[in-house]
């Protein structure tokens, strides 16, 4: 596997892992918003599944994508990620901020998968292409879920 593709896989794996962690964290802090709580857990499971699939493909190629191997290039490619917003914002606004953050992260992730799909086609690597085609729509669905919830809750949050 080419070094840049391996690096991209590391970037994606790390981002999927962080999306899953953030989704679970968001669910925990908005437990009383039941749809947020349940859906974040469902969607975090999608990202966990993606990580498992990534690891499988990598293992078959004889590489390990464990985050311990991240080098500066991977960190740089991932870009600066904002931490989850501080807890001391009033809860409804915090929900908006959290959803905004997860939406953007998932959009970014879907772009990463897109790059992988393109690269895989360039390399004529069907395994990687299948993986990207399987996971990229999920990242978009995660992003759209957050966006649709923002549309629903924002008018009420901003009205008070």
């Amino acid at each position, binding site marked *: 596997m080419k070094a840049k593709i391996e690096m991209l896989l590391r970037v994606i794996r790390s981002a999927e892992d962080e999306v899953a962690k953030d989704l679970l964290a968001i669910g925990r802090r908005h437990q009383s918003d039941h*749809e947020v709580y349940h859906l974040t857990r469902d*969607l975090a499971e999608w990202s966990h599944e993606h990580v498992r699939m990534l690891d499988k493909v990598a293992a078959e190629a004889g590489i390990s994508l464990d985050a311990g191997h991240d080098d500066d290039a991977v960190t740089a490619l991932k870009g600066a990620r904002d931490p989850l917003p501080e807890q001391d914002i009033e809860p409804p606004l915090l929900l908006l901020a959290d959803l905004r953050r997860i939406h953007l992260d998932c959009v970014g992730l879907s772009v990463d998968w897109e790059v992988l799909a393109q690269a895989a086609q360039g390399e004529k690597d069907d395994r990687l292409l299948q993986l990207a085609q399987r996971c990229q729509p999920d990242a978009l*669905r*995660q992003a759209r879920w957050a966006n649709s919830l923002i549309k629903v809750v924002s*008018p*009420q*949050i901003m*009205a*008070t």
Partner: protein
Amino acid sequence: MEGNSSRPRGTTPWVIVERAKADLARQGPSALGFYTTGQLFLEEYYLLGLIAHGGIGTPHLDGNTRLCTATAAAALKESFGNDGQPGSYRDIDYADVIALFGHNMAETQSVLWMRILDRLEGSDPPAIICVDPRLTPVARVADVHLAPRPGTNLVLVNALLHEIITNGWYDADYVDAHTVGFDELEKTVKEYPPEHAAAICDIPVEDIRSAARILGNAERLLSTVLQGFYQSHQATASAVQVNNINIVRGMLGKPGAGVLQMNGQPTAQNTRESGADGDLAGFRNWSNVEQVADLARLWNVETNQIPHHSPPTHLMSIMRYAETGSISFLWIIGTNPAVSLPELARIRSILGKEELFLVVSDLFLSETAQFADVVLPAAAWGEKTGAFTNVDRTVHISEKAVSPPGQARSDLDTFIDFARRLNLRGKDGAPLVPWTEAEQVFEVWKECSAGRPCDYTGITYDKLRAGSGIQWPCTDEAPEGTERLYVDGQFLAQPQYCEDYGHDLLTGAPVEKVEYEALNPQGRAVIKAAHYHPPHEQPSDEFPFVLTTGRTIYHFHTRTKTGRAPQLQNAAPDVWVELSQSDANRLSVEEGDMLAVETARGAIQGRARISGIRNGVIFVPFHYGYWDTDGGKEPQNRGRAANELTITDWDPVSKQPLFKTAAARVVKLAAGDGASSPAPTTGASAPVGSREVPATLGGRAGTASEEVR
């Protein structure tokens, strides 16, 4: 009609109007919410929708249909672009296979069930397929009874579709000509071979194959669906797969071939079509601005007055907004959330909030009414006139028979009065609600329905009086109404016309207009597939059972009416807990033992009934609240409302709360010492053990004699 024994606590509507005005001035329309029912008349719902959406301009209007038919409507919209029952009750008379999915018709629609019993006694009986975790009367007569583990319906139906597709039992020509999305379904259900489903659902693989064979070879297939699917995990996704069975087999729009996504309440259909349930009037699409503009023109208001920036707010969100304080005025009409909503301790804390101004309209001082700041005594169905539309689109008129007692008024009169006192006006300054009679409102509703799927323009009160029962759409072209929708695969899901562009079945995110236009430009039936994921709350060491709730034939909803009918009350006087023989043996429980059922939310107590329910599942009826106990509106010594136990969770698409998948434990508190469970010995709660249990009988009051000369 029995009068309310408790004193009314202030009935002056001015209090309501003053508070509404104050909250509108302080915050705006988003401060006001309305929660109605499935038991008013068409004209009342339509007025309420006009007042809330058009007059006040709040998106916060929903019906308790959210608990009963929201998934029916959602599944129809996903598959056909519009709400509206494809089939007709008459299909029962023609079908050669009737499949009931989570539908204990014998105890929920007993008159319709008699129609099936007639077929079963006749010369050419249909095959019956039943999906239910309990041994219901439907299960007892079924050719195949599938009792899946609660929460796994989607796996089961995907497996049935797997068999239908891999065996070539589908109508490829029909699929090609009239549908979109088949390839995705084929790809998805490939992952659900019967062996795989049998393991997840914990049912015999051969039963899945038998059921699929019957469905796949039916010549006239009628599928019906109810709460076993609607109130369970992945509700819309599962109900949509039932539609898919009929779609891929081309079993629509022909005698005996149809789908009945059932309703649980008498006028739930009206709540939906008039937009009092989280939709817009006349099945209009909130995300199609031309349709909203059309409604605004009819209503004589500006388009932006009608909230359409997001979906109308569903009930569970309304309650959340009341909890967080952004809804400060809540008007509850003809429904009893203090008993019927999940996680009652939470609901009581919301209804009891000091800052929340709560208005309740009801016939009786229900548990919910006891939380109210103002109670409005309402007239019952026999005390007012209005139109009344059932599941298969049949419109009736229900005439006033007696005058309402005391200060009670029809909801129509109350809404008209409210609109006038609030001085709601159209954009030209004319009164928004100038009418005084139900028939006038029916006439404006007809105008609103014109050209929409639920077209009433060919119906008048006089026509309904001349011969009751006309199925919409009823127009100049179809003056006698329309028995079946979608004859010859002619669907109405065109992007400009449809009520809904659909959703992601797993996340609930709406499909955007441009996507839908690309997906379905010709307005065909949409075949949507979905993968299973496990229920959010799974049995554990601490809570090893799955709790499911439901009803008995003798009571309706929270017993507000049926608990006051002595024979019905005597037939099922108190809550009970159903469990299987093997679970009972394991816990050393016998008929009549006092049990506690506990979940992470709360606890109830009830006597044991050993019934034909599947192992690992317990059933508690949801009817029993507190109005006829010392607690009044809440438990005093022991909880008995099933919803003390249920989880706050809902389907991502239909937003229907889940009442069929909670993890629970059972604790034996005391031996029954010969006492029997108050569970009826009829229906799904019939005892299966060896213990003699006194039979549920009508008694002398239930007998009649007839002499034929």
